[in-house]
């Protein structure tokens, strides 16, 4: 087949192909590219000169190339393929979602001489779809809050730095252990053990033995050598939850391990090397504890190389519906039930709650509802009484507008509180104009304190 690059636009067909936004290329019977239009250059990041004469799979680099080649199927069956979805990897290493269509090329005698493939860049459509769905997921963590999205990016970055110590701060039930597990799973230590220890659950001397292990005879009752959590974690990750609860003496020992990468089991005479990565977590404000003198400053800076602050659920109320849906699906699998959804009245109760126990509390409430719900829909009366009374019964029969107002009100109140009632800062965070915020405050009858947050009292 004569190669016809579009470098000189000779015919009207070529002019049309050059002007469209869909990428088009043709191949001969040996899968070598014979023409490559302007849009194909832009989408793949490969110039026409570099593409012509090369194998299509090495220029197009599509997820379909190896086992699911649409063009091969078309040439074998003679049938075109329309709008098959997949993705390509550009020369810059970016993944671009595309849809492709294929056709057979024949000469004047009807003999097959090759094939044509057109493809459309779906990046914008995909971005819009994600924006509409607004959902981000990382491991077992799920959210569509922009704040959590930033945290997901931080987790990915931290995971690739293999030895960095991480401090995760957040209220109880915000998913600190899930974050630690996500960091471990994405890191090079994934195939090594992940060992978790709640430092607040054990008395000091027992915690020391749990962490570092002991030798036979180290103390009364130590009848055998016992490896500690450092030894069990090996080259993996040691997750120390509630690090703020450990005593001053243990803080010193832990600091030494972090500085020298070695420790001594109780009763041992020789040090043991530690290659473990430490991820610490707390629901307390460690910097405040440092100021109060109850937590060692040097240890604080050792463990806080990277700090991840998890927002409480009440600051990401937009996640309640998503998490509820996630837990319904999870418990359906776990408990072998077929619950499909939650009633609007029950959802209104969930949204009205302030979630002191965060995501764990929501998970427990959905689990409880699963136990007592015999139907396919979780209703208001399947929720704990405390949640049912959060809003009066007649208020739970809300229409769409009232639901939206209630949600908007909650979002505005929490943003104002976070910004110390500074209206301009709150408007900026909500990405709305200040006057729109004032209008909504009046319309929703949101009470404001006398101080407006601009001046210090």
């Amino acid at each position, binding site marked *: 087949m004569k190669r016809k690059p579009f470098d000189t636009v000779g015919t009207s067909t070529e002019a049309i192909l050059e002007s469209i936004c869909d990428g088009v290329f043709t191949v001969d019977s040996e899968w070598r590219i014979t023409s490559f239009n302007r849009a194909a250059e832009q989408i793949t990041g490969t110039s026409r000169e570099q593409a012509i004469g090369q*194998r299509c799979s090495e220029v197009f680099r599509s997820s379909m190339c190896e086992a699911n080649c649409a063009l091969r199927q078309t040439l074998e069956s003679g049938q075109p393929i329309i709008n098959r979805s997949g993705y390509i990897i550009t020369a810059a*290493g970016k993944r671009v979602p595309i849809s492709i269509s294929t056709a057979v090329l024949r000469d004047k005698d009807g003999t097959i001489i090759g094939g044509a493939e057109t493809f459309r860049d779906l990046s914008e459509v995909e971005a819009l779809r994600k924006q509409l769905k607004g959902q981000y997921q990382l491991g077992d963590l799920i959210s569509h809050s922009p704040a959590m999205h930033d945290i997901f990016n931080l987790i990915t970055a931290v995971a690739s730095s293999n030895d960095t110590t991480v401090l995760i701060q957040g209220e109880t039930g915000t998913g600190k252990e899930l974050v630690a597990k996500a960091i471990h799973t994405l890191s090079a230590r*994934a195939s090594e053990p992940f060992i978790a220890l709640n430092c607040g659950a054990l008395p000091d001397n027992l915690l020391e033995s749990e962490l570092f292990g002991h030798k036979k005879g180290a103390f009364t009752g130590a009848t055998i050598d016992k490896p500690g959590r450092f030894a069990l974690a090996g080259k993996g990750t040691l997750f120390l939850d509630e690090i703020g609860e450990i005593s001053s003496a243990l803080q010193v020992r832990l600091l030494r391990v972090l500085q020298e990468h070695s420790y001594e089991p109780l009763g041992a005479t020789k040090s043991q090397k530690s290659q473990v990565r430490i991820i610490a977590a707390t629901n307390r404000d460690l910097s405040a504890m440092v100021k109060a003198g109850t937590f060692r400053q040097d240890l604080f800076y050792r463990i806080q190389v990277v700090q991840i602050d998890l927002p409480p659920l009440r600051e990401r109320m937009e996640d309640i519906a998503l998490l509820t849906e996630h837990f319904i699906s999870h418990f359906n699998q776990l408990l072998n039930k077929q619950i499909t959804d939650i009633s609007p009245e029950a959802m209104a109760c969930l949204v009205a709650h302030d979630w002191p126990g965060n995501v764990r509390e929501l998970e427990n409430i959905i689990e409880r509802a699963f136990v007592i719900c015999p139907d396919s829909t979780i209703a208001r009366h399947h929720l704990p009484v405390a949640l049912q009374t959060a809003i009066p019964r007649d208020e739970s029969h809300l229409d769409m507008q009232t639901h939206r107002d209630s949600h908007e009100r909650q979002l505005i109140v929490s943003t104002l509180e976070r910004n110390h009632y500074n209206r301009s800062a709150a408007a900026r965070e909500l990405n709305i104009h200040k006057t729109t915020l004032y209008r909504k405050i009046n319309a929703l009858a949101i009470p404001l304190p006398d101080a407006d947050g601009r001046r210090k009292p």
Partner: protein
Amino acid sequence: MKAAFTIWDGRIAPVFDVAGQIVVIQRSDPSSTQQCTCLPTGSATEKILFLHQQQIDVLVCGAMTQSTQLIAEAHGIEVLPFIAGCQQEIIKCWLNDQPFEQHFAMPGCNGRCRQTRRRCRRGRGKTDHFKQGES
């Protein structure tokens, strides 16, 4: 040193994410039989974890996203991505310690290979291959 080459149809597989097979070569024992292994069918990350379990030091492959490359490097695997060409020729170059990224770069992907070499030189500089490239 152990290298994995993603293969398809006698050539380097065009896309790592969907590659089905690798050939594993041990540089210290080039005369040993080239071992062909199936890659897991899941995500690119699952394939990387599999290679890590197989104690692969170097991965020679076709197109790969930047995020997958970062994950591979975080697992201690040196990556030579965007390579295209005959599997045997590329393996021969690697065994003979000859730089091949420029000659066997995918169409339009010379820059990607150069970036990788620079990053690896700045980083661990683990393989002899990269050390040679420095001189």
